């Protein structure tokens, strides 16, 4: 899966990898992030 120029929806989690982290990683692969969130259930 080449992320270059893909539009990423990043669904992160506080206890895992969060939204801002997923964003940075996706952008480093050349994707743009159209939506990013960090879920927190507790």
């Amino acid at each position, binding site marked *: 899966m080449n992320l270059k120029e893909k539009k990423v929806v990043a669904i992160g989690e506080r206890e895992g*990898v969060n939204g801002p982290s997923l964003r940075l990683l996706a952008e480093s692969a050349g994707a743009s992030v159209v939506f990013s969130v960090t879920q*927190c259930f507790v």
Partner: protein
Amino acid sequence: MVDPAILNTSYVLAHAPDFVRYGSKPTREIETDPSLLTQVGEALRPWDEVVAYPPNQTFIGNLTPDDLAAIARPWLENLVTDAKPDGPFGRIVSQAALYGLMKLCDDFDLLTITDAVAEQARAELTRFEHRRDQIVGVSADELATVIEENDGFELFHQGELAGFIRSAHERDASLDAHVLFENLACKATAVLAVSDVFENSSVNPEEIDYMLNTGEEAVGDRYQRGGGSLSKAVGEVVGCVSATGSDIKAFCAAPVHALIAAAAMVASGLHKYVVVLGGGSQAKMGMKFRAHLRNGVPIMEDCLASMAFIVGPDNGDAMRIRLDLTGKHPIGAGSSAQAVYQALVADPLERAGLKMTDVDRYAVEMHNPEITEPGDSGDVPKTNYRTLAAMAVLRGEIERDEMDEFVTRRGMPGFSPTQGHIPAGVPYLGHAHESMRRGELKRAMVVAKGSLFLGRMTQLVDGVSFVVEPSQELTGSNE
């Protein structure tokens, strides 16, 4: 400089099955689908099961975390025989008692309860002496009048109509009945925890200089929605006549921020005795009820939880707070798990020349996994402990195949209700104190995190940590 220490701890669970329908999630869902109300009613546990539920027994101190770890899951099916609602540092109270507490906390006649509930409350609210004469109820006719003449909603007890909570202002959302109910329940549960914390303490309420409330409620009106100072409202009820107070707002991490602030106040000599308190979160009652219904398990978010701590000069039988070993998550630190744990755990330990393996026990987010797993939210404490173990591997302190042992030895199963600020590490403190008294614990670290992004004002997370160690005199007996 004074050596600051946690002198006493207390925890309360208030059984509140008829409050579940008014939690934030149940309220919204039942409005859309009223048939859910019957389903909720059928899935609630009776008093005996709530008292005997192993995580609840652990919360009040009758079981240690290690005892709980030895009980097979599901804990729902392995209730404790002859379980008592009173424990060494906590207790479980009935819903009637809770209504009584709310009534005596009510200075504005927001809450009406029936004569019957008031009588039951007076009988069941034991070991509590403040304002008992204010636990009064009304006749069924009078209640009917109140209901007719006011905006608000009806309250129930054991399935029957039992009272009413009214809005305090027609056009102020911050004084709506739902908000006031939430705040009154928070105040009432905090009042009991604070009253209890003096029971086994040599400190008296009149000696408290300052109080810090740590709940996530918002007390105010439309012009000052989160004005706060619930701390002072609580102090008034329990007789802390020398104290004033303020509230620490930091999402779930607030109790840990507050304990550190309290320790700093004591260490500097600003105040001698500080109470840190937190009331229950009515908003989170029944939060995961859909998942529980779907999985055919009881609705386990059926208790309001509260806690209180007395911080003061070390008296020889206390838990010292190491102010040189606190961790904070700075704004510039980055939000990766690694950045967070580096800031909260590794950095403070390194400053003191210690390793992660020099901490006997870590207390992280202590949510009961039996509550969270049906909704696929996982086992939060376990995930946190696994991450800590991974951190220790990356730091070269343990091998990869030693991670399980790290988790078992330095972690523990979650046993706290999912009440936001309550589970954030601090449920372990009562146990830590007992362990230190038995000479079994030399150093524990409490690590709390807060999800600031939930308020939509920042994407940041927050976290804060501190280390506790036994008083010198207790350490003497540890050697």
